[in-house]
């Protein structure tokens, strides 16, 4: 496989990063392990979100629903099945939900889709709550917790998977179709792309990883109920992070998520009452002045020092 020179740099950076990550539990304190696990969770959520919402421009606010589905699946199954299986099941449940929802609602215009996904979290939460109250009788569930190190390595594994899948999609004909959908659905359809199916499938793939992440992170908590599993913050944060970082190149959501989770960690310890406020203000500033996020700024800088031609051909 021919890898162009500039990609060598990214590959080396990635391998170095992974090597460091693998060594963390051996050399770092348990606090650091937990911190990095958290960061990885947000990175996975943001990358997953960007797989679909990046190229298509459809802003999904359903991430919390898919993450929560994974959490809940884990709550139901973790006592009877091994961890890898639970993670896959959690991911698959989210995949199925997303494919269903996507096939139905992705024919709508962007704003309607966003509005619908906004409510999806509440819908699933309310339905599960009602179900637990009226059908199964138990609202809260206990989870068999797992070791922090196991959770850490699971998240690393999921991170690598999302990265790989994102990369492969971008380079495949599927990614080409996605790109075309993002620019003009009409033109894409008339070029032979089955727009609704491609959108739904991508949406489902992105949801899979969110569910897998949820199933993994649930092991952190000992007690789960619909309210704790389906928290709208998990819908808002990935969007915030992706907008801040950008969604074009792969590094962008990773950078955005890392910066923001570190910021959150810092702020929740120092100014626990103000962090949402600060995030909100950052969001407003970014939208107003840098709508393409950090990445937009970086690409602009690259263009100005590079050899890009400004002349139309």
């Amino acid at each position: 496989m021919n890898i162009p020179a500039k990609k060598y740099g990214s590959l080396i950076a990635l391998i170095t990063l992974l090597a460091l990550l693998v060594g963390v539990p051996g050399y770092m304190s348990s606090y650091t392990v937990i911190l990095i696990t958290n960061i990885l969770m947000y990175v996975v959520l943001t990358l997953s979100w960007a797989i679909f919402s990046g190229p298509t421009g459809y802003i999904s606010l359903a991430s919390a629903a898919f993450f929560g589905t994974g959490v809940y699946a884990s709550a139901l199954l973790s006592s009877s099945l091994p961890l890898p299986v639970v993670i896959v099941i959690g991911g698959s449940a989210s995949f199925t939900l997303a494919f269903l929802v996507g096939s139905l609602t992705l024919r709508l215009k962007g704003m309607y889709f966003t509005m619908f996904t906004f409510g999806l979290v509440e819908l699933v939460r309310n339905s599960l709550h009602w179900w637990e109250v009226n059908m199964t009788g138990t609202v809260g569930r206990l989870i068999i917790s797992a070791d922090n190190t196991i959770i850490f390595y699971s998240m690393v594994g999921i991170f690598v998977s999302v990265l790989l899948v994102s990369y492969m999609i971008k380079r495949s004909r599927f990614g080409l179709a996605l790109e075309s959908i993002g620019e003009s659905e009409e033109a894409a359809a008339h070029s032979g792309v089955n727009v609704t199916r491609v959108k739904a499938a991508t949406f489902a793939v992105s949801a899979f990883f969110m569910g897998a992440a949820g199933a993994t992170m649930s092991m952190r908590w000992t007690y789960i109920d619909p309210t704790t599993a389906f928290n709208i913050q998990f819908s808002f944060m990935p969007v915030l992070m992706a907008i801040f970082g950008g969604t074009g190149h792969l590094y962008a959501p990773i950078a955005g998520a890392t910066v923001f989770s570190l910021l959150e960690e810092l702020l929740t310890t120092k100014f626990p009452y103000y962090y949402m406020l600060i995030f909100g203000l950052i969001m407003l500033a970014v939208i107003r002045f840098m709508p393409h996020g950090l990445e937009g700024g970086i690409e602009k800088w690259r263009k100005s020092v590079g050899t890009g031609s400004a002349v139309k051909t």
Partner: protein
Amino acid sequence: MEEKCGDGICGENMKILEAERLNKRFGGLTAVSSVDLDVKEGEILGLIGPNGAGKTTLFNLLSGALKADSGVIRFKGHDITGLKPHQIARRGIARTFQSVKIFSRMSVIDHVRLGYLFGKLESGDGDEAEREVGEILEFVGLAPVRDGRGGDLILANQKRLEVARALATKPALLLLDELMAGLTPTEMAEAMELVKKIGQRGITIVMVEHVMKAIMNSCDRIIVLNHGVKIAEGTPKEIAANKTVIEVYLGE
């Protein structure tokens, strides 16, 4: 009585596309009213009419972008009424758009690759694909800018790109919507050349145009629409002499 038209068994004057009594309304407005349309294989058919006559709506109906309220559309003998755009595209009808819809951030060559990969019922791959894609780029004259981005092209080249993307889907019928709009006289001449070359490849063409010179010079037949109704049909000579048509245009 016409025979079914399968690949390779078509003779001259086979009808590649037939539309019967197509109707389309938007709320209270009738855009297309009981239009019959026959397109002969291999011909270049012109579709003209004043603004708002329903030409683009008709294209939208034929390409599946809109669903007709009533009427039937048959392509190569098969009923395609109600099929989705991507299904119609794969069966062999391609189109360009009145307001150019290229992908500004996508490279020129990727546009053609997209059409090639998705626009046919069976998709080739690898070297074969690259060869054909390159050939299409040469054919429309975009080979020099193959790695450029769609959004960086001048209008004339963007139109070429739309045509290239459409051709990549290996169509038997190409619908061109106002290809000449916005072009300089030189560019128009080049565009007419391209249309001729496409016709020579055996692809049937239906073109909507406002530029009379282009229509009169290249079309084998012309259909005239006004207020959604077909008011005339015939050779360029016949149409030029048609009293109703002249009235409609002079009254503009």
